[in-house]
């Protein structure tokens, strides 16, 4: 069943990489958030795979659960931020949020 684990990990990796690329390329704040979700999901896929194929077991699932919960919270907060940002800047373009540049 090694192949199974490898396959899961592969899927997780694809998700992760896609999420990262998403974050890197999307100028839309919401798009960036979506990238984050993808990354988190990639991680979750890995957790679940380890839960099934290694001795990690239930611990991995608990972790995945926490990740999901945190992702939800994060999404809520991030969205609030995005909204505030939008309220202040009248745009959702994250490139405009560069006031912390050096």
């Amino acid at each position: 069943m090694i192949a199974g684990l490898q396959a899961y990990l592969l899927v997780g990796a694809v998700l992760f990489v896609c999420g990262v690329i998403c974050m890197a390329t999307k100028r839309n704040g919401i798009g960036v958030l979506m990238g984050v979700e993808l990354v988190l999901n990639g991680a979750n896929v890995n957790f679940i795979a380890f839960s099934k194929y290694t001795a990690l077991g239930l611990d991995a699932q608990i972790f995945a659960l926490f990740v999901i919960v945190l992702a939800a919270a994060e999404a809520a907060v991030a969205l609030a931020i995005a909204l505030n940002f939008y309220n202040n800047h009248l745009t959702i373009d994250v490139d405009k949020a560069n006031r912390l540049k050096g």
Partner: protein
Amino acid sequence: MTGETLRNLLMTAWLLPLLGFAIEIFGGFWGSRKSRVAAWLAVACIATGFLCSASALVVWGNATGWRVIAHDEHHGDEHHGDEHHGDEHHGDEHHAADSDAHAAVNMKSRNDQATTIGMEPGNWVTTSVSADGNVADADHSHDAPTVYSGTLYRLATFGGLELTLDYYIDSLTLVMFTMVTFIATCIHLFAIGYMSDELTDEYVDHFAHLSDGHHVHRPGRFYRFFAFLSLFCFSMLGLVLAGNIFQVFIFWELVGICSFLLIGFYTERKSASDAANKAFIMNRVGDFGFLIGLMVLWTFFGTFKFGETTDLSGHVVEAGLFQMLPRSEGGDILLDEVSGEVLIGSMTAPNPENSSRTIPYSLLIVAGLGVFAGCIGKSAQFPLQTWLPDAMEGPTPVSALVHSATMVAAGVYLTGRFYPMFTQEVLLTIAYVGCITLFVAATIAVVATDIKKVLAYSTISQLGYMMLGLGVFGWGAGLFHLVTHAFFKSLMFLCSGSVIHGCHHEQEMPKMGGLRHKMPITAWTMLVGVVAISGLAIPGLVGLSSFFAFSGFHSKDAVVATALAFVEANPAHFLLFIVPLITAGITAFYMFRLWFYTFAGSPRDQHVYDHCHESPAIMTLPLLALSIFAAYCAWGGEQGPLYGLITGDQPAYIAHGIAGSVTLPGHDAVHEVHGTAGILAMLAAFSGTLVAWVLYGAGWINPGEIQKQLSGVHGFLINKWHFDELYDSVFMRPMHIVGKFCAWFDRTIFDGILHGAAKVTVVVSRWDRLFDETVVDGFVNVIGRATHSAGLSLKTIQTGNLRQYVMFIVAGVVALFAVVLTTFPG
């Protein structure tokens, strides 16, 4: 005890002038400038001293039964034999005394001996050479002790070394004491008159000029003069009384400083203070040699004492210097056969640890020459003679007392006193030094025109005679001449002082002449002195060996006779007889020249003549007193009482003479040639007198003509053989140059090095500062600036662009991966 009596008497005579000095020096501050109290106090002190000395002489004579004088009834040969005999006894007595004492004392007293070595001042121990000490015993008068020595107090003790102040009283001491105190008394009295112009609040010194051309006006310093005279008397008597060579050195220096003070009495005169400095410094040159002699003696003998140290019971505990040199029966200094050196302390050897010590013969010569160097300085012998004529800057009584009669004779005295320590080589040196000196000085005296300078050179010349006499083994002759010379030379100086006083401080003889009419006493007493020094005599009624003569004849005759005997024994040294003989003629010439110039003929300077006058009685009385002694003190010559007294305690071996590489004549040898020498000397004196009379008395030949013809010689002599110039260029100038060099070296080189070091430090610290400010601070600044600029440049990376950050992260991860992969492949 005779010893204690003598000691007390002489110490009174010695210390009274010191007391006088202490009172007089402060007298000026509470007394009036016009008071003569100081003078009378000084006279009282020194006169009491004279009385003490004279009574000491009497005491001594009584103790010895007057044996030394009693000899003049004997025939000469017997005399010498007796002397010899007595001295033999004398020597025997030493050993007898030792063994007696050893036998007499038991163990207890030996213990005492150990405990009484360190004597306390309050516990003076009088020592006599005799063991029984019963000096009053008439039967033993022949063997009676004649030398008394002991310790006054202790200066310091270092282990086995002890430095003390001692006294050493023998006939020579007593004669010197009496002579010094007597002459000093006369001169003190004379000085009361001579210095009376100082009895004022406003003394005008005509020889000292201010920069505006005026004469110096100052308060009179009468009291100070007498204070210094008293101090001098104290020092001089201390010198004579001294019981060890170190003590002699102490008083040696003290008389030197007194001489300095007295020569420089007219402090306002540059010439006076120059002369004082010259006198003191030249004396110090001699003292430098003296000090070397002391060092050698101290190092090898470990004691300075002349006489033996004894404990209370009269037992000898330590030998003195005079007992330490072993001499053979013939008077030779014995050499140790093993080491070839001189064994110390083998003469008496009471102290076993002394007997093992030796001194190389060469160092013995060094010691002798060293001590003699001191004598050269003090007695103004060649080559240190130049200070004495300059010393005439002092008041004339000073010249009479210090620079003719006593202090300058101290060198001769010490040579005589220290005679037992001199080797034959040293004696020969002494003889030649004396010989050169007497000739050089006499030649200069011939051309001198200053009346005091003539006397000064004659003094040097006569001191040369004394030295010569001592050097050719005429111990008695040299000291005999010392005493007679003291009388007639002080007389002549006082006479010249009288002239100077009478002529209102005119000293140039060419301005005088015919003064005998104005000042007869001075003139005739002076003539006595002149005759005495010239050695004129009338062949006596009794025979050739006896003359009717003044003192100078006898003493000079003794010296010349000894010289002749010496030369007969050592023909190679013939100059030692020829030169003094010729000089005897020169002496007569210049002395009569002086007398004719001053007193005879007609006045050459009417102004001087008109104002001149005979001195008051207080000045002429001493002249008369002295003239008597100048004429007759040597009565009887070598068979007379004075000679007997002087030679009463002469070292035992002298009478024999010593045979050796240089044969030293004994008394017999001298006696053989005495008549010949006497006649030769007298002939020389008469011819000198004759020439003087021809030139100056009768005026048959104009001396100016001769002077012109011999101008080269005359100039040479007038310039005193160019000694002053020579010393100036050879010693003084180099000394000052070296001094300047040292000072320059100090300021330039040492301080230069120091300042250089300081500058280097400053430069280094500047560099350090520069380094600090540029390199160290620069480094820090560069880092700061680099950090800052790096931050500035990195700030551009901080775009604030979220997506770029993500990209960076990814790129970073990829790069890390690449690194990991390349670093750990597999």
